[in-house]
């Protein structure tokens, strides 16, 4: 196998469900050993993308290749080359941890010796050896996730898909899983595609991140380059009363690169934000506007998301729910 071959190559991939286009003409490639993140709110099309790449859904149009095999033509070869950890647990609760792993290794055609060795190896990797003979229905959420990650690795996949691997887990377990993912990626040179709607997760783990919104990629780069796009720190000012005069004043200053308003608070982008705060407050006082709260944020992916989509990821989700409700009402009227 060529060393520089891409683990994943996707061109104009599209999936339409009846009247919704879940994934719209997406193109990207992931190199072998890369940790690639798909970041976006619920309903952005991340899971649909993963389902297409893992052969569970047929693309409507476009081209996708995983580990050198086309996902529509060489399904079984693709399936052999990938490990998948789905968003919702896909374990059999009536089997023990070890039995779930054995089931998997037999489905993937491992021989008896490999089977025993690999199951032991991956159990040790995720520190579940002493829970191996407990029924999975008695596992905690974090243990289930670890077992699934272990299972995804048994058959030496070239590409591992992790769909929201830490959704619904507590902060400590999440940290734990992050460490595993990093370690896996380093030690085994396995390419990892991870979807998440947690900014800090994408930031901490990924070599490159694609920001996805309404089925399209709105940006794709390394986390630090994405943050550079913003051009500096963000200072947020919350004011009492009408912020409009202040907004106008800030817009006229050339050291403030960008001004935006989110209800009562103003978001200002500038270099060395901490040194500018006193000046900002003085300006506000001159205009007779009281500043009730100030905070400074070094650029985060949250801001990057805001920059590219015009919304924060939380608003985005609220908006999406709103849209769904509206859609349903429209249906109801018909």
């Amino acid at each position, binding site marked *: 196998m060529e060393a520089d071959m891409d683990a994943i190559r996707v061109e104009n991939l599209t999936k339409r469900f009846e009247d919704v286009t879940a994934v719209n003409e997406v193109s990207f490639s992931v190199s072998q050993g890369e940790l690639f993140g798909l970041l976006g709110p619920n309903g952005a099309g991340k899971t649909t993308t993963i389902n297409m790449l893992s052969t*569970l859904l047929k693309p409507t149009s476009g081209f996708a290749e995983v580990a050198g095999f086309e996902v529509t033509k060489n399904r079984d070869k693709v399936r052999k080359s990938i490990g998948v950890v789905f968003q919702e*647990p896909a374990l*059999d609760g*009536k089997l023990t941890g070890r*039995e779930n792993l054995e089931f998997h290794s*037999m489905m993937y055609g491992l021989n008896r010796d490999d089977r025993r060795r690999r199951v032991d190896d991956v159990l040790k990797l995720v520190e579940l050896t002493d829970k191996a003979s407990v029924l999975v229905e008695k596992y905690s959420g974090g243990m289930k996730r670890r077992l699934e990650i272990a299972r995804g690795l048994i058959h030496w996949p070239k590409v591992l898909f992790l769909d929201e691997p830490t959704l619904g887990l507590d902060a400590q377990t999440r940290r734990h899983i992050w460490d595993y993912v990093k370690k896996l990626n380093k030690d085994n040179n396995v390419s990892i595609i991870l979807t998440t709607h947690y900014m800090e997760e994408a930031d901490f783990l990924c070599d490159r991140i694609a920001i996805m919104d309404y089925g399209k990629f709105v940006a794709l780069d390394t986390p630090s380059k994405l943050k550079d796009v913003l051009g500096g720190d963000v200072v947020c000012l919350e004011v009492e009363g009408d912020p409009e005069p202040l907004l106008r004043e800030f817009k006229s200053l050339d050291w403030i690169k960008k001004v935006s308003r989110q209800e009562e608070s103003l978001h200002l982008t500038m270099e060395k934000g901490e040194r500018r705060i006193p000046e900002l407050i003085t300006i506000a006082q001159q205009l007779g506007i009281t500043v009730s709260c100030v905070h400074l944020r070094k650029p985060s992916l949250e801001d990057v998301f805001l920059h590219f989509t015009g919304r924060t990821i939380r608003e985005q989700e609220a908006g999406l729910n709103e849209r769904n409700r509206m859609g349903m009402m429209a249906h109801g009227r018909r």
Partner: protein
Amino acid sequence: MVSWTAVYVLWLREMKRYARAKSRIIGSLMQPLFFLAFLGLGFNRMAVPGVQSGVSYIHFLVPGIIGMTLLFSSSMQGLSVLWDREFGFLKEIMVAPVSRVSIVLGRITGGTTTTMIQGVLVLLISMVMGFRLGSFHFFFLGLVFMVLIAFTFIGFGLIFASKMKDMQGFGIIINFIIFPLFFLSGALYPLKNLPLAIRVLSYADPLTYGIDGLRGCFINVASLPIALNLLIMAAFALIMLFLGTYFFEKSESV
């Protein structure tokens, strides 16, 4: 094309789940047991019209109740794809690099095994209650009938499971399809007692031939020749298995 390891491991999973669900086994034996006890013992002293003279009602009833057990157990097995979808495990099965035919075969072998265990258990219980087999060598042909009934309704369950996205239609299938199939099959009384219009429906019900075949094998009393029953049952089993496999292969797994 067919991965026998995959068929085996899917079968093994079914066996493990079955062996661990003690309450499920007991629960699913209770229903046929109640039918046998209350209908069988209750009607035993009465002459049910249409039952051949010299055959006690409980002897007439047992093959019917075995048929009922097989019907319920095997359609549940076919529909168990829905549970796997609900609990997410179906995805784990579907992303595995094995042909879809192997997956269906694994389900059918697993489902048939558990269904046969249920059927034989009901037969044993009824023998404790006084049922006696007619002749010993026909007993094995009876087992063949039982397997064919299991195949037919597993295929039938698979068709529905492939067409449904969630568990919502489940109750409808049980009440509007499985129960009518049971009552139409002549499991509880001779079909001669039914009005003609309903009898026509009965002859479209695969279970009718399965139960008549079982009566022929177990108590030497049947309204159709055993060979004819066998032929029709085999045809139903083949068609249903084929359709079940076809629809399962076509269904999207997420």
